[in-house]
């Protein structure tokens, strides 16, 4: 019996979005109703036994997680279905539904992340070691795409700074570059649908990479990342437009100069290196003042875009004195 213990249910109990939702609501409700909490856990188990869809999420996709003070509250989560079927992952096609269809062949095991550049010595991390390096946290973040749509996603991961600390970067390391997996045989859509130089490259300034909000991400909704969302490991930078959050990372490089980034190479006037969410700086082709929330009916989608996507308290100081209209 769990009487006397706080009813903090780890998200490893979660096997589906519906179960997750129950859990999040339940957690709040049950702060004072411990016995009911235990019953609810039992009910979840029971539901799992009878609902084959829940059981279909094999145990290996579940992640053991802990709560995080850095999670975003007061937002309605976007459904698991939408998060996994509305993706920009051009290596697997340019339509939003393409990655879900085409990303099945992404070989997520074995997987290593190479760390190179301005570090004491180059390192290679195995994905399974990265998963164990630090407790995995549940972090709900708003996600704002440069195309003016947005979601709210319950990610799983830990601050990228935890990894960077273990990499021992030199003082001359001013930026961090992230390179995504690229194999033209696995990702033939990359060259069929668009003319882009692969692999996908993204980058952050060192202080941005060290900001506790920058998440080294392994999962969402309490389970490992689906391939189309950047399995097995990606970064999530919630105050920047989505394309800054590189997926399926194979190389992390510490560099002394601003690294080249894929969308900036494509159209420098449209996608700056910083690309902080900023309602006051329009994309040349559309306004960034408002956004469409994914998963809502057409008449309810439109909402105001927040400066730094609402994370100004944690990140604005990094840009003090900078002209964000010039450094877009």
């Amino acid at each position, binding site marked *: 019996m769990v009487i006397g213990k706080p009813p903090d249910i780890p998200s490893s109990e979660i096997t589906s979005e519906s179960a997750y939702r129950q859990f999040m609501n339940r957690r709040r409700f049950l702060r004072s109703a411990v016995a009911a909490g235990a019953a609810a856990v039992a009910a979840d188990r029971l539901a799992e036994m009878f609902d084959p869809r829940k059981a279909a999420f094999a145990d290996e996709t579940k992640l053991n997680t802990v709560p995080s003070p850095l999670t975003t509250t007061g937002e309605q989560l976007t459904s698991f*279905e*939408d998060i996994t*079927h*509305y993706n920009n992952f051009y290596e697997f096609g*340019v339509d*939003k539904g393409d990655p879900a269809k085409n990303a099945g062949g992404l070989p997520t095991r074995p997987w290593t992340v190479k760390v190179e550049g301005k570090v004491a010595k180059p390192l290679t991390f195995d994905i399974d070691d990265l998963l164990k390096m630090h407790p995995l946290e549940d972090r709900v973040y708003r996600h704002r795409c440069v195309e003016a*749509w947005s979601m709210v996603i319950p990610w799983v991961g830990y601050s990228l700074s935890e990894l960077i600390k273990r990499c021992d970067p030199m003082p001359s390391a001013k930026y961090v570059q992230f390179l995504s997996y690229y194999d033209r045989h696995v990702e033939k859509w990359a060259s069929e*649908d*668009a*003319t*882009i130089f692969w692999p996908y490259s993204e980058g952050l300034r060192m202080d941005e990479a060290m900001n506790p909000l920058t998440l080294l991400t392994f999962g969402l909704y309490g389970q490992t990342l689906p391939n189309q969302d950047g399995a097995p490991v990606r970064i999530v930078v919630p105050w920047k437009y989505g394309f800054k959050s590189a997926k399926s990372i194979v190389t992390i490089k510490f560099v002394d100069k601003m690294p080249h980034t894929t969308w900036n190479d*494509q*159209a420098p006037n*449209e996608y700056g290196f910083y690309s902080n969410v900023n309602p006051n700086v*329009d994309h*040349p*082709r*559309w*306004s960034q*003042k*408002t956004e*469409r929330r*994914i*998963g*809502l*009916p*057409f*008449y309810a*989608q*439109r909402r105001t875009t927040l400066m730094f996507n609402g994370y100004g308290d944690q990140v604005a100081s990094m840009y003090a004195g900078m002209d964000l209209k010039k450094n877009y």
Partner: protein
Amino acid sequence: MKRSTLITLKTLVWIGSLCPVADILWGAINNSLGPDPTAEIASVTGLTALWMLAITLAISPVRKLSPRLAWLIKFRRLIGLFVFFYATLHLLTYVALYAGFDLNVMKADITKRRFIIAGVITWTLLLPLALTSTNRAIRKLGGKNWNRLHMLIYPAAICAMIHYWWKVKTGVISPAPFTLVLFVLLMARPVWAWVERRRKARAVAV
């Protein structure tokens, strides 16, 4: 062509042309327009207008392939009006769901954003064509003037194609199929004219 066949075919064209908008309405009622309904509505209305425009441009070169295809012309006005119908829905999607009826937003967009400018020009070019689609308007204008006015379909088609290219990201090539089709349809006209000139010249020589 028999009258009853014509009526049957026209009914089928009506039904076919209304399918995309019926699909949107059905999706809107059931909230099944996908993760991003606003973008879905914009994309369906825009692409339908674009491809129906290609169909109207195909009619005159295709019917020249054989005298037995002459009846195709009877469908051009109907399809052309559906082009205008979908272009208007597309514009209204922008006005209502993107600009939120905000005049300042629209003013900023129309002065600053080239893909929106190209879109608005396209619709503006289609407007007089829709307005002069009645038999009365044709009589009033006279066939020659009416034909001349309706040459606006060519710049409208080119503007629509530019609008599409400017809308997608650099490097994305999804407007390519329409561009290719439009190129073929526009080139078909001078090619046919050349073929006919040669035919006539031969007839004279003989």
